[in-house]
């Protein structure tokens, strides 16, 4: 099997090249119409063009603002609520059905509500981002609290550690890996919702620009913006993995199996 000798990353690189080549060749050879799929070079040129425009960075900033603020708010709310609910068996049982009921509701259902209440502004994006990200983090925090070792907790109690001390030494280290997973999932969801809000509602940001380029027939530009969102998605993903590695390497001695 000669494939054993060719290394993984090298093949990956080849894959990227093949893809770009196909993308360049297809419209030029007439396999697809150029007005539907411009060649890669045109799209990349448009993208580079955008990099030099202040408006592009402003739009990107708007999107990232909605993403960032929404994510932060949802994390804080979810951690607080999650720790409170998780640490009380009564609250856990009482809220179970409500959570299971509200959780599967698609955040896009709130779009008309957001428009009605908040208009075509960044606040609408925030509503959607917060709603969707909140559940991701909350669920993981609840899993984390449920995973706390009762033996460790009882031992801490018997040594006279109060609730705050226990939260710090027993609960928090167990919850942390789950929280990181939740943040990673939520960060991807937050981006999707931010862009969705901009796309459908028209609040400022990259999503709105994409809608504009599409209706205006600026096809290479539209593709360029799509590629830009993909790049943002990858950067967020990489950032999260880095965060995960740093925080959890520190905790690897205490951590148990993480829910994927």
């Amino acid at each position, binding site marked *: 099997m000669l494939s054993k000798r060719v290394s993984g990353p090298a093949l990956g690189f080849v894959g990227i090249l093949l893809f770009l080549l196909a993308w360049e060749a297809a419209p030029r050879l007439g396999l697809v119409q150029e007005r539907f799929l411009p060649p890669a070079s045109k799209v990349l040129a448009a993208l580079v063009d955008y990099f030099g425009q202040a408006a592009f960075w402003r739009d990107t900033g708007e999107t990232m603002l909605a993403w960032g603020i929404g994510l932060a708010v949802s994390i804080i709310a979810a951690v607080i609520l999650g720790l409170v609910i998780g640490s009380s068996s009564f609250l856990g049982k009482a809220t179970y059905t409500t959570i299971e009921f509200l959780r599967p509701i698609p955040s896009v259902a709130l779009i008309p509500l957001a428009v009605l209440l908040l208009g075509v502004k960044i606040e609408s994006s925030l509503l959607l981002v917060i709603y969707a990200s909140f559940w991701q983090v909350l669920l993981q925090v609840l899993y984390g609290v449920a995973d706390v070792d009762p033996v460790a907790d009882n031992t801490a109690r018997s040594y006279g550690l109060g609730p705050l001390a226990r939260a710090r030494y027993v609960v928090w280290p167990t919850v942390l890996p789950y929280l990181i997973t939740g943040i990673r999932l939520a960060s991807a969801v937050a981006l999707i919702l931010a862009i969705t809000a901009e796309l459908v509602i028209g609040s400022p940001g990259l999503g709105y620009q994409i809608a504009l380029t599409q209706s205006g027939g600026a096809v290479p530009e539209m593709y360029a913006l*799509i590629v830009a969102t993909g790049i943002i998605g990858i950067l967020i993903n990489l950032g999260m993995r880095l965060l995960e590695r740093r925080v959890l390497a520190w905790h690897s001695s205490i951590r148990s199996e993480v829910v994927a």
Partner: protein
Amino acid sequence: MSILKRTGYFVGLPLLLVIAWWALTLGPTNFYVPTPQKLAETFWKVWTGERFFTDFLPSIARLLIGLVVTIVLGIVLGVLIGSYRWLRSLTEPVLEFFRAIPPPVLVPLFMLIIGANDQMRIVVIVSGAIWPVLLNTVEGVRAVDQVLTNTSRTYRIDGFARLRYLVLPAATPQIMTGIRQSLSIGLILMVISEMFGGSSGLGFTIVLFQRGFAIPEMWSGIVVLGLIGIALSLISKAIERRVLRWYHGLKEVQRDS
């Protein structure tokens, strides 16, 4: 726990919330929030009438078709890519990039290429929902137990039989995880594709109501979407429980040992 207590926990908080909602809307008609009775009335009027056929069913149909295509395509491609290491290495960076693109972004794209019709909506659903299925299938196929694989080889279980008796069952838990995620993504994309460039369907209707300030109707639409989301979640849980009975049993035994 007694039946009474369990029922109490089950309906307690939701009931409290509904009562609070009713209390808050007791005064003069609130513009933004209808009373519970009004909502119930409107819900019935809107969704059991003509709209059931012109909007509700078509949306569900699109969603289901999209999900079926997603699952089949995702599993087939996933098995293919997961079975050959060189193929995985070759396609991994490109797939990672496509998966990182927020799916809603592709709605304008497909609308441009395919037009504002049902095929476009189904393609949109597939383009976003396929990733969890595909990637989880690849992972599930890749991670089949080595001893089991060797055993199959010694008994000369190859080719299609190998797929049927070894690879697919072994990867099923992982695939189910992917399918579960793809259900919610599919629903979201269905709604977005109708909101953005639609002429019928749930998403389109809700936006229509909102633009026409038909507030109770709008809320009723939101409730419908919520119910669909819940229904999908329940169905997938039920299917998982059945299909993965052996897996749950196995995990329980491993946990105790």
